[in-house]
């Protein structure tokens, strides 16, 4: 395969893409209390600017440029733009969605003095800034630092309701992810130290240099560091057995935040693994095997736990555990097809899980309940939400013609190619059970006969949500269908991102 060397261009965009949301986040903290206009206006302005910058970077990267800033310390290639574009789009949808979502009475009454809409929007923008920083940095230790800061920025979003379950979820989230990510730091330190003799001091910390040293450093150190990194970044991504925080945090956070957590936050862990482990995987046969075993366990556990949930949001959260395993399995293969499929599923899962969480948020908004057994008694007059939900259901279980099918099919091919047929079979079975699990929930909520228990009482009805909420959902649903029918739309960006990893891998 021919991998061309792209021209490196010094540009301020990689700096702006994380600085703009950080500054706007700060502004919201400072001025948000002045009124709703300030909060919403600043949040919208910040997120639109970020989105604009992300799109500009994408266009330039697709033209074959690699953007760097501050002497290679910030390095934006296809993979970074892919993540930043996904984060900015999802962030924009979530911000617009939140404006109506929190209008519902139930949410505001529960909110505690420590949390307010000011801190909410402030933290969302801070988080997006840190997220973009994580994807733009090229420094292996700063990757850990910014990754940990993305956790810190989202903790008080998880505890937004400030009730007992939310506090508990936030505490677990903060503690477990912090401890987990320290493992990744230890792994990074080992790699960094091992690389010191082979590289000049100014370049030794750079992620892009990992490929040149991949075969030079002692194999036991690579394996030890890889194990530490899988534990560390795997905790962030929510792989079994490091997933204990994920269902709690994703279920107790407000629905738009859950969409952000499942859509973007756990993907940072996958991104970090792509930058580190994928570089070593082709040289060490045990790494793909180890990752395939871990991911298969994740798929089985996540899918089984999702099946037994009555709480809609917990069901979605456990399914995230299973779905992120597909992404990491692909990235861990270290082959073109594997990385391509992994990244494609990363994007697709961001779209689909965001869609599902927003749809569930709409259900909670209208019906005020989130248990499937209780929702089965509510009459729904929400055609758009139902449409979005069912598109999400089919897409996440990998049914054609939705986007999940394309990426999962690519992944199964890649896993089969790597002579891990059993892992591909586990993946297919997990997909089928996901369909059963989600379709059952959707059927019970939207289609089943509504029984009325009390004599003379009407079943409660739930009406369609405001436009600000359904616009985002419909956009994501349409994206899920369009990307399923015309997957080639994503190809240039995915191809560029995959080749970035491969280029690092061969040390170009």
């Amino acid at each position, binding site marked *: 395969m021919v991998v061309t060397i792209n021209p490196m261009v010094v540009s301020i965009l990689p700096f702006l893409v994380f600085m703009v949301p950080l500054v706007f986040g700060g502004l919201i903290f400072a001025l948000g209390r002045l009124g709703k206009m300030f909060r919403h206006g600043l949040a919208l302005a910040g997120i639109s600017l970020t989105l604009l910058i992300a799109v500009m970077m994408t266009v330039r990267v697709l033209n074959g440029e690699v953007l760097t800033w501050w002497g290679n310390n910030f390095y934006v290639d296809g993979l970074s733009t892919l993540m930043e574009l996904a984060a900015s789009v999802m962030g924009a949808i979530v911000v617009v969605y939140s404006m109506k979502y929190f209008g519902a009475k139930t949410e505001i009454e529960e909110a505690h003095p*420590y949390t307010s809409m000011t801190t909410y929007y402030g933290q969302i923008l801070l988080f997006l800034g840190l997220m973009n920083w994580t994807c733009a940095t090229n*420094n292996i*230790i*700063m990757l*850990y*630092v*910014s990754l*940990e*800061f993305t956790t*810190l920025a989202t*903790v*008080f979003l998880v*505890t937004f309701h*400030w*009730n*007992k*379950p939310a*506090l*508990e*979820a*936030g*505490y*677990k989230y*903060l*503690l477990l992810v*912090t*401890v987990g990510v*320290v493992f990744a*730091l*230890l792994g990074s*330190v*080992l*790699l*960094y*130290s*091992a690389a*010191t*003799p082979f590289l000049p*001091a100014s370049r030794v*910390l750079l992620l892009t240099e990992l490929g040149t040293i991949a075969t030079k*450093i*002692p194999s*036991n*150190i690579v394996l*030890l560091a890889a194990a530490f990194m899988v534990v560390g970044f795997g905790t962030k991504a929510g792989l079994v057995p490091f997933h204990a925080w994920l*269902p*709690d945090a994703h*279920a*107790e956070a407000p629905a738009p935040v859950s969409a952000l957590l499942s859509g973007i936050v756990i993907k940072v862990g996958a991104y970090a693994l792509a930058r580190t482990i994928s570089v070593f995987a082709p040289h060490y046969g045990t790494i793909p095997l180890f990752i395939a075993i871990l991911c298969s366990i994740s798929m089985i556990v996540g899918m089984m736990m999702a099946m037994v949930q009555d709480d809609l949001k917990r069901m979605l959260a456990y399914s995230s555990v299973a779905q992120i395993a597909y992404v990491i399995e692909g990235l861990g293969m270290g082959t073109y097809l594997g990385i391509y499929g992994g990244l494609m599923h990363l994007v697709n899962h961001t779209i689909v899980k965001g869609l599902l969480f927003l749809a569930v948020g709409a259900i909670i908004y209208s019906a005020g309940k989130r248990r499937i057994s209780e929702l089965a008694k509510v009459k729904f007059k929400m055609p758009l939400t139902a449409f979005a939900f069912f598109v999400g259901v089919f897409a996440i279980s990998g049914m054609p013609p939705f986007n999940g099918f394309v990426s999962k099919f690519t992944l199964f091919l890649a896993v089969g190619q790597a002579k891990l047929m059993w892992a591909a079979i586990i993946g297919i079975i997990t997909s089928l059970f996901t369909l059963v699990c989600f379709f059952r929930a959707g059927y019970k909520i939207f289609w089943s006969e509504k029984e009325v228990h009390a004599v003379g009482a009407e079943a409660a009805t739930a009406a369609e949500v405001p436009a600000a909420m359904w616009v985002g959902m419909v956009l994501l649903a349409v994206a899920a269908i369009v990307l399923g029918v015309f997957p080639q739309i994503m190809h240039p960006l995915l191809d560029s991102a995959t080749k970035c990893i491969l280029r690092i891998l061969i040390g170009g």
Partner: protein
Amino acid sequence: MACHFIASVGAAEIRNLKTATLFLLVQSLLLSFIIVAFAEKSQNYTLYWWAALTFITKVVIIPALLWWHIKRTEYIEVKPLVSFVVSFIILSVFLIVFYQMIRTYVGFVAPTVEATIEPARSSLALAFTIFVLGLYVLVVHRDAVKIIIGLHLIENGVHLALVTLVPKLPVTTILGIVSNVVVAAVMLLFLTESIYKAFGSADTMKLSSLKR
């Protein structure tokens, strides 16, 4: 080094939270001394910056926060899963064996040849031992404050590994790491206090309403 080890075990095992905090303070103080010693030996002046940052965050800010928190809430530690005597004996024996093992077979964890030579060798072994000790605290202890102390033992262990293995780290990066630790500590203490108010206890075992 031996003092550092004893202080770490003290921070992990002393039942009185205030005393445990003091032990953590001493442990961090010794950590910054070790960094100064490395700086003297290698004539590497960025290490002085590093030692200063470690001193400010780990010796001053974090123990002060812990102390302030314990004083304000005035609760006593929730009993851990294992009793004091048993825990102390088993832990000491295990840690000494672990330390010796890492020291003997340092080739498994040392990424460079320099790291296998004294004093890096002992220092690396100590770093991994403290890391494991911190993990043990996280698993066995139920008290939320004690868990924070355990977390800091882990962070200090990694910090020692950092100093030993990559002494030429730029100051900005070190600043990033230590500020991270401080922000995490503040947020954890804030959440612990809120949980204490909401649940009436700092027992992490009771945080199981979401289990399943």
